[in-house]
């Protein structure tokens, strides 16, 4: 089935957006990593969420997800890889599937990792963000996986299963990818691997890689008071729009983004 609104990110901003989309009678699909991979999950005490002093991050996330489920929000585990707009619809690829939606709420949190030297230059020439997409092109060949989540380990396992010779780097900080016109090697923390491909599997795609043309200021997604970005039907909420990186701010922005997305879907229907 196709949904009215796709919400990218299953933290407080995304879940708040989703329940408010449902409250306006629209369908919502949340794409996210497992709840336990959300950075808030590890927070032992959230002191300033109004009315719930001292609640743990895990309790808060669990309650929020249950709330969303009870309101009819649908969930899909995975990572949004790319997005494109055609004839009033957004096409967003998640793993090996595509979601066709009318509006998008971007609430994927902050990506703290910077791009590595060679990463942008060799993208599509051995550098890949999607093991299931490009893995088959490197069967029986040496590849490196730079993994930043538990999900990344599963993807590395998938690469092994299809016959890639995998060198796994666990959350490497400083890497350099090099090669003449195509990937030849990767150097991470003093260790060099001669490989034909480097799969960089971060928890989320950088917003500008996902939505080329998205406005960015000081590293954060630009959004107006309605949480609208400059792109048609794309709204943003939560940590990705800037500080304070706090639950209350994320939930509040999610509310506005959800309502704005629902209003946008209504306006499209009247067109």
């Amino acid at each position, binding site marked *: 089935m196709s949904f009215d609104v796709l919400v990218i990110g299953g933290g407080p901003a995304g879940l708040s957006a989703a329940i408010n989309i449902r409250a306006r009678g629209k369908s919502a699909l949340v794409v996210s990593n497992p709840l336990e991979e959300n950075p808030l999950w590890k927070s032992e005490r959230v002191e300033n969420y109004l009315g719930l002093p001292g609640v743990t991050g895990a309790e808060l996330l669990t309650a929020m997800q249950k709330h969303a489920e009870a309101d009819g929000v649908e969930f899909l585990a995975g990572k949004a*890889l*790319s*997005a*494109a*707009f*055609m004839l009033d619809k957004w*096409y*967003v*690829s*998640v*793993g*090996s*599937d*595509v979601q066709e939606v009318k509006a998008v709420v971007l609430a994927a949190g902050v990506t703290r990792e910077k791009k590595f030297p060679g990463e942008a230059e060799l*993208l*599509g*020439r*051995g550098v*890949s963000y*999607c093991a*299931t*997409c*490009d893995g*088959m*092109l490197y069967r029986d060949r040496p590849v490196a996986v730079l993994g930043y989540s538990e999900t990344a380990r599963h993807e590395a396992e998938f690469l092994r299963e299809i016959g890639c010779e995998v060198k796994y780097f666990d959350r490497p900080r400083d890497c350099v990818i090099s090669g003449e016109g*195509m990937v030849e090697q990767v150097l991470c923390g003093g260790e060099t691997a001669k490989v034909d*491909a480097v799969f960089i599997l971060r928890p989320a795609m950088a917003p500008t890689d996902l939505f*080329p043309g998205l406005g960015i200021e000081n590293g954060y997604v630009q959004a107006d008071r309605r949480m609208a970005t400059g792109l048609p039907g794309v709204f943003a909420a939560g940590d990705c729009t800037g500080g304070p990186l706090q639950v209350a701010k994320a939930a509040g922005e999610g509310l506005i983004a959800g309502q704005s997305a629902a209003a946008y879907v209504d306006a499209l229907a009247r067109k």
Partner: protein
Amino acid sequence: MALKHLKKTDFAATVDAAPLAMVDFWADWCGPCKMVAPFVEKIADDYDGKALVAKVNIDEEPELAQQFGVMSIPTLVFLKNGREFDRKVGVMPPETFTSVLDENL
């Protein structure tokens, strides 16, 4: 339907004969490829009679993928009488592909 599905056996003859062609290298386990698919289908209809729009399934035709050095999919290769002059790798808005075609019609 203007969209052609090419195999190794008919690729060269078909593409060499086309003054302008766009070939989409794809596979059915690739989400981003599925996303580009409706764009490619629409372009095939819109450019019917003006450009050859074709798809190559890299699982079925690994030799063609290798011949074109496809290292990431989707890859869209643009050719004039079989000679490549441009390529676009990854998901891009449909206008990116149509502008390459328009400039070379």
